């Protein structure tokens, strides 16, 4: 119960805002990919372009464990879900994939706040631009 509460409060508050600026914020030093999942956000290209998922927002900041989503909702392989035919908004509304939590009670409903996850071609380009710039710097 406590976990759910933490998720609702922290997750809902931080999710979109933190997500928007995820690209701007440097990933903290103590970010451990084994604990929190891949560092780089996943950007889905199907069925529509430029939808983002950021592990850090959900795990490190939201308090979710790996097994909260894997392997029941999503395969471990990053971005694999987009190959499924049912990876659609309609499935989300029925509680599939992100819709398991994004149902309006655990986290904001899938049919609200579209641009929180749909960062758009503009947002995706910006993210990739930053990633490229970041790689260059290393």
């Amino acid at each position, binding site marked *: 119960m406590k976990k759910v509460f933490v998720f609702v409060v922290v997750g809902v*508050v931080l999710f*979109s*805002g933190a997500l*928007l*600026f995820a690209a701007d914020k440097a990933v903290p030093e103590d970010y451990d990919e084994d604990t929190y999942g891949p560092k780089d956000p996943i950007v889905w290209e199907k*069925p*529509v*372009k*430029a*939808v983002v998922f950021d592990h850090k927002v959900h795990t490190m900041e939201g308090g979710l464990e790996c097994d909260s989503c894997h392997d029941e909702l999503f395969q471990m392989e990053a971005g694999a879900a987009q190959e499924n035919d049912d990876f659609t908004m309609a499935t989300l509304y029925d509680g599939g994939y992100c819709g398991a939590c994004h149902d309006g009670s655990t986290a904001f409903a899938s049919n609200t*706040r*579209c*641009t*929180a996850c*749909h*960062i*758009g*071609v*503009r*947002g995706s380009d910006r993210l990739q631009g930053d990633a490229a710039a970041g790689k260059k710097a290393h």
Partner: protein
Amino acid sequence: MKIDDLEQMESEDLSTLSSAERRRFLKIGLAVTGMYLGGSILSLISVKNAHAAGVVPEAGTYPYNPHYSMVLREHLCIDCERCKEACVKTNHVPSYGFRTTILEKRRSLGEDKSETIFVPVLCNHCNRPPCVRVCPTTATWKDEKTGIVVMDPSRCIGCKTCMAACPYNARYFKEETRAVDKCDFCLQSRLSKGETNPACVEACPADVRVFGNLADPKSRVFQLVHAPDTMVWVLRPETGAVPNVFYINS
């Protein structure tokens, strides 16, 4: 002519002039002055009477039928840019130009949080189009049947005044046709061939773009902009262009 005949003739002095006739005469005078002042007076007379009490015209006062317009359900736009891709493909838009695009704005949600709003933009097919008024060779005009602002590339001299005059950045110079190019609601590429929707509308997966005849109360565009409790807005209303692209959030 005898003096008696003369008396029987109708007087031609000013007292017999009906006020309607006076007005007509004055109008001719004004029109001539307007011509000489280079349209600075004429330009005040809009292409069609523009009813602009609020941004949505009163029902029944649409100058055209079909009066094509588009309603953009702004908050649903996710910038997937399928509309742009469809437009490019359908209308042979070169890589350096666009007929429609997506803008992005940020709205603060308080503290350091904000939300992103994507704003699809295209030609607003204004009722009082500044671009049409300024073109020296009438290379662009409002289609008499549909109200769509169209271009005849072969008349364009490339002075780019229409680009300067457009409040919506809807025009660009297309090198391939040596003329300014712009959105025509796919009149040429689709509507004239029996399609009912422009390419961008058909391509949109989120039902953001709704296209139709505003003069038809049964059309979806009519119902959306006349729905109760709905806030309808347009871009840059202060320019007086009376646009036909409306934005809503419901």
